[in-house]
């Protein structure tokens, strides 16, 4: 009985392997970065705020000279 169903099991396993193949290749493709490194670097966030207290202190020091 098992020998007669060998082709059926083989077909099922082939289908499972094909599904796994598709899933893994989809996951790998989804995880690949698409933004070039130089653009990613250029888009890095920038803090525009300067330390006002530091410059105030600097001004006071300069005035005291």
């Amino acid at each position: 009985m098992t020998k007669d169903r060998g082709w059926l099991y083989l077909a099922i396993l082939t289908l499972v392997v094909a599904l796994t193949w598709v899933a893994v290749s989809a996951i790998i493709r989804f995880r690949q970065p698409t933004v070039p490194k130089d653009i990613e670097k250029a888009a890095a966030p920038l803090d525009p705020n300067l330390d006002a207290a530091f410059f105030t202190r600097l001004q006071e020091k300069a005035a005291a000279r």
Partner: protein
Amino acid sequence: MIDFKTIPERYRRYYTYLEPVIADPLVRGYFGLVASFLLIAFFLVFALSPTIDTILALRKKIADQRATVTALDTKISNLIIAQENYSQVESLIPILETALPGVPAPQVAISQIVEFASSSGVVVTAAQFKSVPLVGDLATPPTVAEGLSSLAFSLAVTGTRDAVTRYLKELEQALRFIRFTNVTFSAAADSSQISVDAAGLTYYYVR
């Protein structure tokens, strides 16, 4: 059952060979199922997989590029704000260059040490800077924060208590940034003079 009389002579032996196989109830029952599974697997690998890959890659590219556009727009706004902030402190840049120079420049700190000593009325008995990298990268300077390095120095002065205290305060308030890490006072029993051994750091930017 197949009627052999209707089949041409040259094809008859193929039907004779296949007929027992086709007549097998197991083959009849499972052939369709097995063929379907194998066909689905074939089309999954060679047709659906490339299509799904392309769709996912395009969706990811669209999402990534939208995020990049948003990040760039935010950065443009921040650059405009940074430019306005810089224009407000632009007049202080020369003073900043003295306070935090881009090179070690120990001579500025030394001149401050000597200048304030004479104005405060203390006597500098010893002054030493350690490991000053003047040119090149022979010695790796100690890093205080990102881009900021320090020069260690030690100092020994003698004077009255008030003069020494005034001197140390003036040094810490000097234009070139100086921070004392250790100050030791010692006084002679029969004298109004005190001696101070101080260790400190002066800072500069590593470009």
